[in-house]
């Protein structure tokens, strides 16, 4: 006997939003989860200490008359140039603070999904793999840009405001683009770097250690290889040194190492490409049959 079934469940007459940013729920969750981690808020707040110090330096440079008594020759020392910005952005401890932030905010991004089998819940929804990865990447981009690009632009603005003229801007009109460019490079490289390591293990604590150690170890290894082989090209092994090379190029400064900056771009691009390949392989909803 034929059966006619009444579709009696809830009907919604509204319009579904055009999903221009389908990755946004992933990003929002990632940011929310980061702030729920113990100690992260403190670490995040700590990221703004260097910009505050830099701003104090800018203030001092604009009020040299008041500070001359403190340091002899301060008028030469405290001079804000693009080099100062390059120093601020590529200064080892500043970048290290950024890495520490990623240790907490980025380690679990994919590792936790793998651990909790969340991929199958995501991919049974209207969400593509690229949206998923973009959402995860956007978490890292958000945190890195908010501690680099935003303070960088504010520092330029404060320099203009404190000097009371547009002279600095007119002298270095490309500086804003340099800040934007370097912040984006840093954010993208760190996003790929963090997601690569996060996708390699289900244990986010292990990934935290890996993010930290890989960054540190690449620098130590680079120094050892330089001493051993007596060639400056070994700086290409170091993530920090490569970022510093790129920073020097973008801020139109002299490179710290006698190595063409193009090589550093190649190394960082290779790291991103490797990460993309690994992510494409690891991120899939597959039942493992044993």
């Amino acid at each position, binding site marked *: 006997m*034929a*059966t006619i*079934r*009444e*579709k*009696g*469940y*809830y*009907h*919604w007459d*509204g319009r*579904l*939003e*055009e*999903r221009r940013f*389908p990755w*946004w*729920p992933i990003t*929002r*969750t990632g940011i*929310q*989860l980061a702030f*729920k*981690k113990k100690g992260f808020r403190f670490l995040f707040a700590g990221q703004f200490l260097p910009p505050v110090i830099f701003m104090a330096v800018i203030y001092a440079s604009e009020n040299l008359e008041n500070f001359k008594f403190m340091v002899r020759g301060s008028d030469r020392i405290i001079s804000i140039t693009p080099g100062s910005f390059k120093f601020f952005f590529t200064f080892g401890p500043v970048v290290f603070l950024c890495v520490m932030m990623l240790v907490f905010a980025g380690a679990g991004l994919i590792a*936790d999904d793998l651990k*909790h*089998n*969340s991929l*199958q*819940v*995501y*991919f*049974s*929804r*209207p*969400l*593509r793999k690229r949206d998923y990865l973009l959402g995860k990447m956007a978490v890292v981009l958000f945190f890195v840009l908010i501690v680099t690009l935003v303070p960088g632009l504010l520092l330029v603005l404060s320099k203009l405001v404190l000097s009371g003229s547009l002279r600095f801007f007119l002298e270095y009109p490309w500086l804003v683009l340099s800040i934007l460019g370097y912040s984006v490079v840093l954010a993208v490289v760190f996003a790929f770097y963090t997601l690569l390591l996060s996708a390699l293990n289900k244990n986010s604590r292990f990934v935290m250690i890996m993010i930290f150690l890989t960054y540190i170890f690449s620098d130590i290894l680079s120094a050892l290889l330089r001493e051993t082989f007596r060639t400056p090209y070994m700086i290409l092994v170091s993530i920090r040194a490569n970022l510093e090379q790129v920073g020097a190029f973008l801020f139109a400064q002299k490179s710290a190492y006698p190595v063409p900056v193009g090589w550093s771009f190649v190394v960082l691009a290779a790291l991103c490409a490797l990460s993309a390949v690994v992510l494409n392989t690891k991120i*899939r*909803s*597959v*039942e*493992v*049959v*044993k």
Partner: protein
Amino acid sequence: MTAVIAAKSLSKWYGNVLGLNDVSLEIEAGITGLLGPNGAGKSTFMKLITGQMRPNIGEVTIGGRSVWNNFPLFSSIGFCPEQDAFYEDVTGWEFLTGMIRFHGFPPEEAAERASRALATVELLGDKDRRIRSYSRGMRQRIKFAQAIAHDPGIIILDEPFNGLDPLGKRKLIRLVKDFRSQGRTILVSSHVLPEIEAVTSKIIMIHHGKILAEGDIHKIRDLIETYPHMISVRSNAPRALAAAFVGDASILKMSFGPDGRSLVVETHARDAFFGRLQSVVVEGGFEVEEITSPDDNLQAVFDYLVGG
């Protein structure tokens, strides 16, 4: 009835391991049970239906449209995975609203739907607790809530009764039956046969990646000729009843139940036996208290087909 989900020559393998082998079937509206031992291919089949994986061969269609890469179609599917699939540090509310937002609902609608789904699974009072503090049963219910919150027409439930206490199981069974009466298509997998039996008699039996049987459980049993039907007749005089059947050629074997009051008959000709039983009971003046078929159930069919 028109098939809602259709699989055509579906095969999926992982390296050298065959997950699913040349599966063709159709699933209609209502509840269908997906049965099979662990590793049979149930989860693979469900992931192919929900578009999470691409079949190596074949195609899955929903309402005539191919599932693979058809992302708008995914909003008509609700999937409840077997394993816990959420972050421990988010609240039930955050988890649910986040999941609903993937379907493109505006925030207010997502919130309303989350409230409704949480109320359905009786978790509204615990919505602001972190999932970390949820009991096993609550986790099952929040998983179920995320599968139904966007009001899908098709609900895929992978081992949904795992970890629920008897009361929780009964509630979920009632809920699943309610969804059926709303005209939805529900596919429930389980390896606990009474759970499936409690919600439906329409089953798909899967083993080693192949479909062993599909359809109504009783009709499937009728088709299994290798094993004779067992019929238990409880009466006041089981031995006298047995004596009346000794000469019946359709009966292969007779025995007595442990209570001493039941005659258990094995026959290939069930209808003929019932016809003869009627006359024997009337002529002999036997009092029959109960007639049952001990192997006309899911467990027996499963054992016969899978070899358990």
